């Protein structure tokens, strides 16, 4: 016996679809747990199919065949494909859609990068132009062959003078001097930033050229110092950390 004895008769009824009530529920529960009875059920359904061969009767009318052919013609294969489609048949479409989204993402990213590069190139060109302009200004100011003329009142003897241009926020200083007296050997002028409070800050050591001109361009300075004025002393060539009296020149500030 290939099936459980207590279920054998009921299994035949179940195969025929005529087992009802509690017997049917019990059978379904048993079938879920019993491979042997499931196999026997398949065989009983096969036996049951043979019963169909015992049915005698006329052939179906010809109109039934035409009815089927007409019905099939009304249902295009594309619609059938949709009905029979399984979830995994969408995988290629999902993959294609994902790739399309990724491609669009890359295209957008590429476009943004191109725009950034163009923007940076434009900025670099502008900065290059500004740098070139600044270089020309500095070269003009510092050129050894530059003609430097200080215009003063007519008939007045030339006086030593200096012009300090200071931007506190950038700690940037340009100092131009003219008509500076010659110095003794091993001496130099030293420029001092006189803050609104605190000790003078060294702002560069310089020696005038044969015409008495000199420049101090962007000396190292502490950040953000509020300047009251600038002053000049004579110091050793290497400069000093504190001014040596007397002060030979001093500005008015502002």
């Amino acid at each position, binding site marked *: 016996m290939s099936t459980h004895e207590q279920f*054998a*008769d*009921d*299994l*035949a*009824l179940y*195969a*025929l*679809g*005529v*087992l*009802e009530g509690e017997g049917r529920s019990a059978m379904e529960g048993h079938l879920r747990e019993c491979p042997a009875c499931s*196999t026997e059920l*398949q*065989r*009983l*359904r*096969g*036996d*049951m*199919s*043979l*019963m*169909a*061969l*015992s*049915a*005698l*009767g*006329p*052939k*179906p*009318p010809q*109109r*039934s*065949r035409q*009815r*089927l*052919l007409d*019905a*099939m*013609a009304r*249902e295009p*294969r594309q619609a*059938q494909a949709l*009905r*029979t489609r399984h979830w995994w048949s969408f995988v290629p479409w999902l993959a294609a859609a994902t790739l399309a989204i990724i491609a669009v993402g890359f295209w957008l990213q590429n476009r943004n990068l191109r725009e950034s590069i163009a923007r940076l190139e434009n900025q670099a060109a502008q900065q290059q132009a500004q740098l070139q302009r600044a270089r020309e200004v500095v070269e003009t100011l510092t050129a050894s062959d530059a003609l430097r003329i200080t215009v003063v009142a007519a008939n007045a003897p030339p006086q030593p003078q200096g012009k300090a241009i200071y931007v506190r926020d950038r700690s940037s200083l340009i100092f131009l001097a003219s008509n500076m007296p010659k110095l003794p050997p091993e001496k130099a002028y030293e420029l001092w930033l006189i803050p609104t409070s605190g000790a003078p800050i060294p702002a560069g050591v310089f020696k005038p050229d044969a015409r008495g001109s000199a420049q101090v361009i962007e000396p190292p300075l502490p950040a953000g110092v509020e300047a009251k004025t600038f002053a000049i002393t004579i110091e050793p060539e290497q400069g000093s950390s504190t001014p040596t009296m007397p002060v030979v020149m001093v500005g008015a500030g502002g």
Partner: protein
Amino acid sequence: MERSRLLSELPTGAVGDTALLSAVRSGDQGAMASLYDRYSGIIYAVALRVLRDTGAAEDILQEVFMQLWRNPALFDASRGNLAAWLAVIARNRSIDALRKRHPESDLEDCILSVEPDLAGDAERSRAMERVRGVMGEMPSPQRSALEMAYFEGMSHTEIAQKTGEPLGTVKTRIRAGLLALRKAFA
């Protein structure tokens, strides 16, 4: 599609069910017509025997083949042979119609195991003769119980009430009848 058209142009019986079903999956109406020519007789006979109404039997015939046309993947070789599967589906749908109830079994759930291959006309004829022989040799109460369950969808309780026989006896007769059919093809 070309292969399918060639298949359906071959004489009935020259092409196996598997090849015809493959063509049906490709949308070949000719292959479907070949399957209809092969098995409509069995299906219609079962439906007519159950429903005793030609119009209703034609509806079952149409329904079964259209189910296969719409979704040929419902059947594959793991479900047994096509003729037996169609016969069981047709019988179950007919019983559902007779009892005016919604289909109780899903087509996809029906897996069966049966020996004879009914694809060829000759095999089908021999199998029919053998089944009718076995049924004819059964004791009348057994054949009657089996036919009431199969063709009328009667439960063993209904059969016992109708025949006045014990429930257990009815159950045993039905099962024994099915096993007798199996034995004839073993």
